Each structure stands twice: as structure tokens, then as C-alpha cells.
């Protein structure tokens, strides 16, 4: 009986250790709740709002930034996609049916293998097959109207004329619950904020290698708290030498809680 009890106690201690380590030794990140559907009235939307919708889908439900970032080089960057579209339509390797820029961008999301950017094809396919899924189906499953909004956003992002029209039909946009009026839970760590807002897509920070914005790896060595706070809230107030204005979103003041902003500033100041 003594042996039996020894073995039981020993086993319970091991299980307790694993459970305790998982609970107290590992950060307890509360994953975002599943997106909920929200009806959007496209009929009342201006083109600016439609482009903003495309941007939200691009950064959120569409999960485009998982791969289309400067980090990792998994997929081509899309800031100039609308600019190069006309050239690609004329290339021999183009296998699609689009005839204009908007059609090309739309087709690149529904039939991504119609044109595969060199170096970004599926392994072993010699750049003839794209690893990108069809955005209309699968777990992303955007609607026609949502895809059109992303096309509008990409055209606007490239600085080209937005040629798409706002569809007349209503669309269900999936948003995180906080967007539907309920406050979202605050981020617990600055890395979570950086990851959520994909700062690394443009800035060099941590292991991210973004080059669109200034290098932040030692930003605390030459910038003070006030400057950094202002740069987050009003990014166009002062542009670092060698970088362009109007690239960084200017609505972080609305998106971040005050505590989060200070936590982020603390974090950046410490980068020396």
C-alpha cells in the first residue's frame, strides 16, 4: 500500500507541476473572441469610408498582413500593387482574364495563381502556383463587396485612381467585438500592442525588419518620452529625416487606451 501511495503522490506532484507551470510560468494571453457579423449599409457610404472599410478588412478579417509584411518575406508587399498591375497584365506569365488594374487586383485575391510574383510561388512549382488561398472561400471567406473594398484600399494605398464602384448590396462585415461598441480588454504588454498594430511591418523593432519607417531598436537613446508620445499620436507633426509623411496611421490616439499609450512609450524609451 505504501508503494501505491508513493506512486500516486509522485504522479499527482508531476501533474501539479505541469499544470502550475502552464498557469503561472506562462503568460496567460486571452485570445480575441471570434469575430461577430455586423451589417454595413454600403448605400450610405462615401468612397473614403469604403476605402477605410477595405483597410480594416486588409488588416483584420482578411488576415492579409499575416503574410504581406516586410517581416519574413512570405508574400510580396502590396503598397505598390496597383502601380505595377498594368505591367503585369502585359507579361507573358500572366494567365488570368482581367483587363484593368481593378480587375487584376480582384483576380489576385480570387485566383492568386493567375500571376505569381517571382520568388513567391509554392515550393517546387517554379512560381506557377501561388500559396495564397482564394479569399472568397475557406476560413477567410470575404464577400464580393468586401473584396471590392480591399481593391479600393489597394488602389488608394498605391496612390492611384480608385476605379471601383461601391456595390449597392449590403455587406456583413466581421469585426472584433470591441468595434461593435463594447470596450476591448486592454493589452497587458507592449509587445502585444506592437504585434496587434503590426508596427514591425514598417519599423525595425525586435526581430521585425520593417524599412518603411524609422529604426526603433535604439530609439530611446536619442528620443525622449514627449517626442515618442507625439510621434504616435501625431505621426505627421515631425517626420524623421529620409522618411515620407502620411504613411503612418494617425488614429492611434483613438485606438489605444491612455494606459497602453504610456506603456508603449515606456517601452520605446527603454530601447537604448
Amino acid at each position: 500500500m505504501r508503494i501505491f501511495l508513493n506512486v500516486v503522490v509522485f504522479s499527482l506532484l508531476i501533474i501539479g507541476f505541469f499544470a502550475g507551470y502552464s498557469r503561472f510560468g506562462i503568460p496567460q494571453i486571452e485570445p480575441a473572441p471570434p469575430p461577430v457579423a455586423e451589417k454595413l449599409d454600403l448605400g450610405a457610404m462615401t468612397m473614403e469610408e469604403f476605402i477605410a472599410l477595405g483597410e480594416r478588412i486588409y488588416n483584420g478579417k482578411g488576415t492579409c498582413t499575416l503574410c504581406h509584411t516586410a517581416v519574413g518575406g512570405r508574400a510580396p508587399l502590396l503598397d505598390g500593387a496597383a502601380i505595377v498591375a498594368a505591367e503585369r497584365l502585359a507579361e507573358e506569365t500572366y494567365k488570368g482574364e482581367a483587363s484593368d488594374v481593378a480587375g487584376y487586383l480582384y483576380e489576385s485575391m480570387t485566383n492568386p495563381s493567375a500571376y505569381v510574383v517571382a520568388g513567391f510561388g509554392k515550393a517546387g512549382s517554379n512560381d506557377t502556383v501561388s500559396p495564397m488561398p482564394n479569399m472568397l472561400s475557406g476560413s477567410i471567406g470575404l464577400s464580393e463587396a468586401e473584396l471590392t473594398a480591399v481593391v479600393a484600399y489597394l488602389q488608394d494605398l498605391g496612390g492611384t485612381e480608385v476605379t471601383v464602384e461601391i456595390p449597392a448590396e449590403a455587406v456583413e462585415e466581421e469585426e472584433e467585438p470591441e468595434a461593435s461598441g463594447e470596450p476591448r480588454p486592454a493589452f497587458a504588454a507592449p509587445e502585444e500592442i506592437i504585434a496587434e498594430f503590426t508596427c514591425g511591418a514598417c519599423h525595425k523593432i525586435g526581430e521585425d525588419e520593417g524599412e518603411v519607417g524609422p529604426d526603433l531598436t535604439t530609439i530611446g537613446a536619442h528620443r525622449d518620452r514627449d517626442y515618442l508620445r507625439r510621434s504616435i499620436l501625431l505621426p505627421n507633426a515631425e517626420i524623421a529625416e529620409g522618411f515620407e509623411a502620411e504613411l503612418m496611421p494617425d488614429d492611434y490616439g483613438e485606438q489605444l487606451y491612455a494606459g497602453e499609450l504610456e506603456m508603449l512609450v515606456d517601452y520605446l524609451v527603454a530601447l537604448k
Partner: protein
Amino acid sequence: MGIPQATRKGHRAAALVLLVLIFALFGAGLSWLQPTLAFAQETAQEAGDVQGVAEGVYLAAPQPTETDYPQIAGVNSRVVVWLVAQLHLWFAAFILAVPIFVLIIEGVGMATGDERYDKMAYEFIKVSITAYSLTAILGGLLIITLFVFYPHLMQFLSNIFKESMFYYALLFFVESACLYVYYYGWHWLQGGFRKWVHLTVGLLLNAAGTTLMFLANAWITFMMSPAGLDASGGFSGDAWAAMHNFLWNPINLHRVIANVAYGGSIVGAYAAYKFLSASSAQDKAHYDWMGYTANLIAISALLPLPFAGYYLAAEIYAYSQQMGITLMGGIFAWLFIIQAVLIGTLFLSANYYLWCGMGRSEGAVRYNKYVKYLAIVIIGAFLVWFTPHTLVLTNQELKALGGPYHKYLGPLGIMPAKNTAVNIMILFTTLSFILYRRANKVAVVPWVKAGNAAQVALFSAGIVNILILGIYHGYFTNTVYKVAASIPQVATTLIIIVASTIIDRFMYRGARDVAPLRWGRIPDRAQYALFLLAVAFTWLMGLMGYIRSGIRQHWHIVGVMRDNSPDAYTPTLGYAANVVSVGTILFMAMVIFVFWLSHVSTVKTVPVLRESEA
């Protein structure tokens, strides 16, 4: 009176033909399903008016709302299904694995003529026989809970997989029949041709069991990487395409290997308990040998398991980068730090058991001095594997450190460093085993020095290669190529293991014993290493079961059928760990019951006679 030699040869030839036929039958079994399943392409019109038929052709995936999920007596349906499914899986893994190595051990016993192998194989299968009915009971309970709590999902799945579910039920009868003949006929089917028949039944048992698992794997991998569906998510009617989905084979491979490792660890715990309870030297020797063999089985399967894991993860990325990134770099990333702790525990306990086992022979004294170096390297590799990339810090700590990544330790948190560490850990475990095998022997072949030099060169060159690959790809290439080192690293490790085993095998052929190997001479604490192995393995399987299911996030069937139940959210790791722990405790309690039954089945109580009856 013996059987004439010619007759015996005839029996063997006949048995061999029978074995080949059985292999062919089961090898072709799944492809035979293909044309049969093709008739599943019946249209809704042929099947009559079926509710939920899309466009009048095939059954579309239902889209239940939150209120469509039955709520029964306040029971948390997700936790109930989670626990029952995991318990079923633990038992299923155990009862599928044991017949695999029992058949091998029985075959070894037959080939060597050593009856101890046969006795041990019988004892292994005896342990699993009671677990078999518990597996079936839990499987039945799982089906009931799934249909009660998730009726829409089960209706859709059973429409797609109705044929394979039917074959599953049939195969279950085949497996049961084989198991009962195999176990109860063990002593009856001994010697000559009868033994061949027994082995054949064992082979049939394994073929049926493995095919059963493959069928069930198809259903769960369909939920992760659905196939055979039309553009709108409706079932296209091609049941074979749905079964042969993208992640089916990676999971099949991973589960077969993991099951063997797991089965070995559970039987090892049984042997450890029997060893501790044994009172006679003879029993201690027997259970020591049994524990050693079980540990050997567990380690042999544990070594290739990380490679099967790489393959599965790579296929998940190939199927969906989105799913791959969620798995390794998203909300589940920290889970792999817990996994590192668990796998590190497995490697350390398995090695510790081997080192303790070297005490069975005085000849091992020659190698004791190396053990501490092996331990240092394995612990070092474990610490690298266990290092997280991002550190969770307070603002003050952040300021002091200068960022969330430690200057020197941060680079150890990314995959190239972890891949390098795990390959080195595997190689040093192999070294432990080589030393253990040499403990009581001295090689007598004339090329001993050259053989040893070749092994040293092999290990040294391999380790340098693994380090260079890890450092180059990890720190001098961009992110997308960071894991490119893993395949050449794995290839290096496998080549070293195979080549060094072959060299050792030939070098120690006819080796001289320097001291006897005394089975039973091992400290009790070594047995606790076997318990640790079994518990850590169980907990690890539970955790990885969670992530396999969890990466579907808010989808029952990814991209096809959304989970709209109140429990569709992904829980925190602490919550998941609690469920896994409760499951492990329940499983361990049931296993103790199974072991106890196995014990009492051998106990005979002699009634005390009264004087008047005497």
C-alpha cells in the same frame, strides 16, 4: 514424435504466403474503399428530399446559431466532449500500440528461441486486454456526447463519412475477434505451424487496429483541412477525396509513432510498479527486464517523433500559412514552451533510467565518467529549447534589459536554435544508449580502434554540421529561410543514428562479457523515472491534442462550418492545462484499475477449511 522437416518447411512456406496475402489485402484495403465510396455521390434527388440540401444537389454544411446547440443541465458541452475524446484517445493509443510491439517481441522470441520474450509479450498483451473494453466504452460515450451536444456537425460529418463509419464498425468486430484469438489462444497456438498462425492473427490484429485509426484520423483531419467540398462548402459527393484530405497522412504517421512511444511508456510504468512490489529476486529481475524493454520501445519511437512533428507542422504551413502562423507564431506560440518542458522531461527521464541501468553490470564503471557530460549537454539542449523568444517583463525590467528580447538569450528563442537543440538532445540520447549497450561487453573484433574512431568522427562531424546549419540559417538568412535548416539537420541526425548503430552492431558481434548483467540490480528511484515518463507522456498527448483541435479556432470544419456555440472562443493556456490535468488524473485512475484487474486475475484465494471439513 516431431514433425518431419519437409512438412515443417511446407508449413512455413504456407504461413509465409498467408502473411504476404494479408499484407496485400490490407495494403490494398483503403484503395478498395475508393470505388465503393464513389457511390456516395448520390444526389439529393436520388436520396429524396433531404433537409438542408444546397442547390438541390448535395448536402450543404449547416450553419447553426448559438441557440441551436443543446444545453443540458448546465453541463459545459465543450469540456465534456474534450475530456471524453481525450480519454478515448489515450486508451486507443495504448491498445493500438501494445499489439505492435507485442508482435515484434513475439517474433524475436520465435527467432531466437528464447522463451522469456514470449512470456513478456504475453504479459504486455494481458495488460492491454482490459484497457480494450474501456476504450470501446469511452468510444461509445464519445459518440453519444458528440451527437447530443453537436448534432448539426455530426449529421453533416456522418453524411460525408457514412461508408467509412460503417467500415469502422465492421473493422471493430474484426479487431475484437483477432484480439481475443490472439490473447486467449496464446498458449494453445504454440510451437511450429501453430506459432505461425498465432503471429498471423497478431498481424491481422495490427492491420485492423491501424486501419481503424486511419479511418478515424480522416474524420478529424477533414475538420482541419476539409476536402471533397464544392466552392460553396457543400459536400461534392467524393467521400474518398474527403478522407484523403491534406493533413490525413501527416497525422497518420505522427500518431502511429507517438502511439508506440506512448504504449511503451505505459507498459514501463506497469513494470516499474510490479518491480517495486516484487518480493523475490526472480520477480524483480523479470520486471526489471520488462521495464527496460518498455523504456527501449518508448525511446526508439521517441527519437523519430520530433521529425514526424516537423513533417506535420510543415504540412500545416503548406496547407494554410494562416493556420501555420496561428500555430507557431500566434496565440499558441507559448504552448510550445510548455511542450519543450514536457519533451525535455521525457528525454531526461529516459536517459536517467538508462544511466541508472548501467549499474546492472560492474563493467559499466568504465563509462560512468562520461555520464555527467551527457547530462550536461542534454540539460543544456533542454534549456535552449525551453528559452522563450519574448520575455514578459515589468517596465522597470524592460528598462534594465533594454528591450523584450534578452541580448544573449533572445536569439535562442527562435526555431533554428530549438531545432539544433533537439537534434543534439536526440544524438546524446543515442550516445547514452550506445554506452548502456556496451556496459558489460568488450569488443573482440580486430578493428575496434578504427570502429571507435569512425563513431567519434561520425558524431563530431554530424554535431558540427548541425550547429553550422542552425547558426547559418538561424542568424544569417531572413525569416522565411530560418527553418530551412531543419531537414538537413534531421537528415544528419538520422544518418548518425543509423550508421553508428550499424557500426556498433558489427563491432560488438561476438563480444566478450566482462561482467554479468544482473537484472533486478537497479535502484528504486529508476522506477520513478519510468512513472515520470508515463505521466509526462500522457499530459503531453493531452496538450498536443488540445492544440491540434484548437488551431481550428472558431470553426468546427475550417472555412466550411463555423462554431457558433457559446464555447467557440479559444481558452487561455492555463485553462487548457487544467482540463488536460483533470483528464490525466482520470486516465491514471482508470489505468490503475486496469493494472489491478490484471493483477487480481492471477491471484488464487484458497478457502480456509473448517476442521470438520478437513
